[in-house]
């Protein structure tokens, strides 16, 4: 119990203390979050009328980004498989960072949903026992359950792992492996149920296709690893941690395969829609060509596709793939491309035109953008704080017995190099 307290104390101290660059970074995030709070305040005072969502397009960037970020949370799974199913050491080293990205992403997801709700204070109606959740019929109900389960699972894994590292004790292998392996089907489930939110609706032909589920998993396994590679590249520079090139290469190799699958599924969808050219094709038409002067998404559609295809070819050729700069660029392209495909191209065309043909072109309002910025700020803050605790514990030499940590308490940067101390 004592060691738990000590670990908690250590973690909090790591989060709060740091160099001036660290504080500057936190201040930047604070500004983002303040922007979000002020936006939310405005929405709170006036209601959702200050967003540009309306009855024909009842969901906008909140739910779009939510669908995207659920995918990003796949980061953990993308590492857990090679790390713990195939016991590949270079990846095993960084699994915890993947889990931290997943935690940050899921927290952002939950915040986006809360920002979207008309009555967030009634969230308890969703919970079993105290509320009256409509399970298993409502896919949002299912998704909330599974997403929160996934969050708890990842928090448990990360804190248990870090705690064991802190007290320098081997973790309980059965327990840890069980949790780790459980996180894989849990990750698949969150993507699956998120896809089900959309594709089980016969009212919306744009989504009502079983291929949406594999597409969700494919996009997830693109966006998550892409963000992870970028984050690791940044951490390598900023926190000076040792992540093996081999690990990054492996991640990118996996990503390019999934990216191919994703492009294939997307292509199949496009061909099916345009070749059959039923009344239902109108949504994809709106996305790619616009309808009668309503061309709000056309630029997005094509640039998203261009991002994904360019990145695919850049990553496919080993020569360009192994070039660090091109790799970073390609990962950024994948990240942006998937965001456009999922955050914009999934939700909005599904509602445009509406079920009775009303064509309302949605683009986010100022308040929506502000809230989204704030939530992303929170996500980055969570990632920063958690990785500040995690990095010294996962990437340093073992601590000495009388508690290297105790010794470092006074002078964190002198006793042993503090990667995030900057």
């Amino acid at each position, binding site marked *: 119990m004592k060691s738990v307290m000590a670990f908690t104390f250590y973690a909090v101290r790591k989060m709060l203390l740091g160099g001036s660059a660290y504080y500057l970074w936190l201040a930047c995030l604070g500004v983002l979050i303040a922007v979000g709070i002020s936006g939310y305040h405005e929405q709170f005072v006036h209601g959702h009328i200050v967003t540009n969502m309306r009855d024909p397009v009842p969901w906008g960037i909140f739910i779009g980004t939510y669908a995207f970020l659920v995918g990003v949370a796949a980061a953990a799974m993308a590492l857990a498989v090679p790390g713990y199913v195939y016991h590949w050491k270079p990846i095993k080293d960084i699994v915890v960072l993947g889990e931290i990205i997943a935690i940050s992403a899921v927290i952002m997801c939950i915040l986006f949903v809360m920002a979207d709700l008309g009555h967030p204070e009634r969230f308890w109606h969703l919970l079993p026992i105290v509320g009256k959740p409509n399970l298993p019929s409502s896919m949002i109900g299912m998704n909330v359950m599974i997403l929160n389960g996934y969050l708890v699972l990842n928090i448990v894994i990360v804190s248990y792992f870090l705690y064991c590292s802190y007290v320098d004790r081997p973790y309980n292998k059965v327990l840890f492996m069980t949790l780790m*392996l459980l996180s894989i*089907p849990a990750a*698949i489930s969150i993507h699956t149920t998120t896809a089900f939110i959309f594709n089980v609706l016969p009212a919306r032909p744009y989504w009502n296709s079983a291929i949406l589920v594999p597409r969700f998993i494919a996009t997830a396994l693109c966006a998550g690893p892409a963000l992870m590679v970028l984050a690791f590249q940044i951490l390598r520079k900023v926190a000076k941690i040792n992540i093996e090139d081999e690990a990054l290469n492996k991640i990118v190799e996996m990503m390019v395969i999934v990216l191919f699958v994703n492009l294939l599924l997307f292509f199949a969808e496009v061909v099916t829609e345009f070749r059959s050219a039923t009344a239902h094709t109108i949504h994809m038409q709106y996305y790619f060509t616009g309808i009668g002067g309503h061309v709000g998404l056309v630029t997005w559609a094509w640039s998203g596709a261009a991002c994904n295809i360019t990145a695919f070819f850049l990553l496919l050729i080993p020569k360009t793939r192994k070039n660090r700069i091109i790799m970073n660029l390609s990962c950024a392209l994948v990240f942006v491309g998937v965001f456009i495909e999922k955050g914009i191209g999934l939700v909005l065309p599904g509602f445009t035109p509406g079920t009775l043909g009303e064509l309302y072109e949605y683009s986010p*309002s100022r308040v929506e*953008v502000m809230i989204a910025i704030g939530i992303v700020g929170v996500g980055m803050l969570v990632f920063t704080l958690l990785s500040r605790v995690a990095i010294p514990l996962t990437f340093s030499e*073992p601590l000495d017995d009388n508690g290297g940590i105790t010794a470092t308490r006074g002078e964190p940067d002198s006793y042993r190099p503090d990667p995030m101390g900057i």
Partner: protein
Amino acid sequence: MLARGSKPRNAPPRRRRPRWIAVGIVLLATPLLGSGKWARPENDDLHYPSRPLGPDAEATLLPPPPIDDEYFPCGDCHEGEPADPERRELDEHDYIELKHGDLWCLDCHDTMERDLLHLSDASPVKMEESWRLCTRCHAKKIPDWRAGVHGKRTGNWRGAKEYRTCVVCHDPHSPLFKPLQPKPPPIPAAPFNPSAGAASEEVSHEGL
């Protein structure tokens, strides 16, 4: 390094692949498809019971709109005057637009008893019972009307009802419904515009 808790490095790699993962995936990802049925409470479960509804009451017939007394009773002008059976443009009654099949005044209005209508067998019909005349041609509408499917019916779906006879809704001289000015169209969904909307703060709409 990281895997501080793992077994010695030289231990043979474990062969067992966790196959149950696949089972887990299937179990977790398979939604039990819900039907709407269960979300529908049975009457016995509800704590807001209804009041019994009364039996279907007799229908009331709404009277037809009164005829302008400048022209009715017709006998005031036409008394004793023999009707001219010739089909022709009238000098009087130019307010009447006759657009009812191929009919002419005296097909319905009686030539002798000027205040009455008549059927094709010359039997007289009172103005208030004009439906008896209408149904001579439009007999097919009777069952629909009785059932409440043809014509407007107001009041109670179970209980007292108000029926309307033909001439309440249809002008017998020109029975097709006249166009009406429609009520204003709905306001199309529009992005947030604070100067027009309910929220009156100075906020400008900027799309992305």
